[in-house]
């Protein structure tokens, strides 16, 4: 009878589980039906899996902890079915240290969370769908987890999200790394989430809020996504201390985008090398302060935005500092604009001349997008200089800062500066020699 040893192992497992006072179970040997082990475990028990490969899909329908043994070697849960690799149906389930390999392209997520207060810690997920999806499940935690898209050669639009929350409130997502998915962290109708210290790369939107309230997005890093943080139809969101860089490849790229966002705070972010640093459209009563907006193609772009406060930001090295259209009733003061040369007559560090943002180019390209070709061409700058009508209605910084704050960041490593210097010296000496040789003989 081939099933006999198997039954014995399961029995041994159960015995161990029962005997240990802490409720710990050790799966001693594998290959093993993980599902069976889970079904037989007591609620509240802790199951420690030794290294090896376990086959999914599995469903956990009681509160318990499933974790990898601390020893060397990986615990891999592999799934080739169309179901989620792991489904969390009950409250209070903790998963720790597992590696989930779920490479089938499908509708259902790799980890589906349906219960409250789940904890997902130190997982490594390779997914062909959403990495982690929570539906109608509150108070979950995802930390120290890596999520990566597994299938090569797929269009961005066909990929799944890294973490996808729907009607899931008060989630905490910290210290995760997410790469090459659709949206890194997508939150819809999910309030009061904390998104902190995550790294999100090469995805569509790094962090995406839809119909959320009081989301906190803090200390994250976004690189090479289409958009770093997208806050849409949201209220009282806080976007602080994040770094968004190099979102410049796509024609719709931006560092931080606010659309239909209200009472949101965007502060102390570093927004570097994006197509548009800060893009604000149809948004009101937002506070944008102390951001460092540098080396973007457009620093800040305002479209039909009103009643926002924009202060103490620093704009430098951008191809153009600002573009604005129909956004004349915002409070804009005390920002530093490096293309602006002001005059400070009373020595308070602020210019008495105002900095007005010319709306010509924005207005022109809205009606005829083809003219975008003239972006910052010498003739266009000349034309903008000529166009000065209705200056009082332009978006204006009333008291721009004269000098930047001392803490300007210089993010680029300057390794090849020396090569350029030497090359310059070489070119200089070659031409000098040529000029000398070709001089008129005396």
């Amino acid at each position, binding site marked *: 009878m081939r099933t006999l040893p198997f039954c014995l192992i399961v029995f041994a497992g159960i015995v161990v589980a029962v005997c240990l006072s802490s409720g710990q179970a050790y799966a001693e040997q594998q290959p093993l039906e993980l599902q069976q082990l889970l079904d037989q475990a007591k609620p509240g028990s802790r199951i420690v899996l030794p290294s090896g490969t376990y086959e999914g899909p599995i469903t956990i329908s009681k509160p318990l902890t499933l974790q990898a043994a601390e020893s060397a070697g990986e615990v891999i849960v592999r799934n080739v079915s169309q179901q989620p690799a792991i489904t969390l149906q009950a409250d209070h389930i903790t998963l720790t240290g597992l590696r989930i390999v779920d490479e089938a392209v499908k509708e259902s997520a790799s980890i589906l969370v349906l219960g409250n207060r789940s904890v997902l810690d130190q997982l490594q997920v390779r997914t062909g769908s959403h990495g982690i999806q929570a539906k109608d499940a509150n108070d979950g935690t995802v930390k120290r987890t890596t999520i990566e898209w597994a299938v090569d050669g797929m269009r961005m639009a066909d990929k799944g999200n890294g973490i996808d929350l729907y009607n899931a409130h008060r989630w905490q997502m910290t210290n995760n790394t997410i790469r090459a998915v659709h949206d890194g962290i997508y939150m819809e109708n999910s309030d009061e989430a904390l998104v902190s210290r995550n790294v999100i790369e090469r995805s569509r939107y790094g962090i995406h809020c839809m119909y959320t309230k009081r989301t906190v997005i803090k200390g994250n890093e976004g690189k090479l996504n289409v958009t770093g943080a997208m806050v849409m139809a949201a209220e009282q969101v806080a976007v602080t201390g994040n770094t968004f860089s190099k979102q*410049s*490849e*796509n*024609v*719709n*790229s931006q560092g931080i985008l606010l659309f239909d966002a209200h009472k949101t705070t965007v502060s102390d972010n570093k927004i570097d*090398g994006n*197509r548009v640093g800060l893009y604000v459209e149809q948004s009101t009563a937002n506070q944008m302060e102390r951001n460092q907006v540098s*080396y973007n*193609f*457009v620093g800040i772009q305002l479209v039909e935005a009103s009643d926002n406060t924009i202060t103490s930001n620093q704009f*430098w*090295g*951008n*191809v153009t500092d600002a573009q604005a259209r129909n956004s004349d009733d915002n409070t804009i003061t005390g920002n530093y604009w*490096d*293309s602006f040369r002001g005059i400070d007559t009373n020595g308070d560090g602020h210019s008495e001349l105002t900095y007005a943002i010319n709306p010509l180019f924005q207005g022109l*390209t809205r009606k*005829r*997008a*083809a*003219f*975008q*070709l*003239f*972006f*910052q*061409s*010498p*003739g*266009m*700058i*000349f*034309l903008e200089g000529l166009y000065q009508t209705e200056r009082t209605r332009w978006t204006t910084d009333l008291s721009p800062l004269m000098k930047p704050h001392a803490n*300007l960041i*210089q993010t*680029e490593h*300057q390794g*090849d*500066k*020396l*090569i*350029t*210097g*030497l*090359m*310059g*010296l*070489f*070119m*200089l*000496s*070659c*031409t*000098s020699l*040529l*000029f000398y040789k*070709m*001089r*008129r003989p005396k």
Partner: protein
Amino acid sequence: MTEMRDVAAREMKIGFRNPWAYSFTALFALFMLSLLFINAQGYVTGYSGSSSTMLNLALYLLPLMALMLGSFSLTGEKEEGNWALLSTYPLGTWAFLTGKYTGLAIVLLAIVTFGFGLSGAVGSLLGGGFNFATYGQLFVFSLSLSFLFLGVALLIGTIAHNRWQALTIGVGIWFFAIIAWPSILIAALGMMPYTWIKPALTVLTFLNPAELTRLFTVVKLGGGSTLGPEYYNWMLWIRSPWGTPVFIGVLVLWIGTALTIAYRLWERERRRG
């Protein structure tokens, strides 16, 4: 071939003794340096505020330089009677024109290289300096721009009878191609049906060497996404492996066409004269 080389060598000799060449060198180097001083702590990399300013400086200065040096060189030959003398020798018009072009191109190369060499060397001493790839792209941009406008310059030199005429036409073309270009196009194309604007703009961009090189360089510097969704395919295409060879092809075609037209006109004049 030897005729061409002789003409080129003579042109270089005249060119490097021409005080105009030295004043242009000084002007270009001075402007490059002052931009570098304004942007003292900044490291110039990719498409940014400082590289865009340098791009625009080159767009203002280099075409004007090429147009003046090139057209004056040809009209000078006419005014001083050198051409009347040269045409009695068995010297082909084509060899004469290409020799002129080559000699002047080397002079322009020296001017641009000196300006870039100085700013590259000083830049790295100042603490700012250039990213090497960006430096290279700006340098190639400046050269392409100069060579294209040199082709136009020889055409002007062919049409104009004296330096004054050459100056008038040259400055007119410079103002039209660099300063007034967007204004005129926006006004003219604004009256057209919406769907015609992009194709018309595409064709016209190929006719304006300044816009052609500027857009190529903006995309190469990584700023292609500023052109918006309308030109997404351009961006992909310029950045593909075919981008650079085809750009060089367009460059050669452009200069070749300008020289061919100049040759035809010059030959007609020669037969009449």
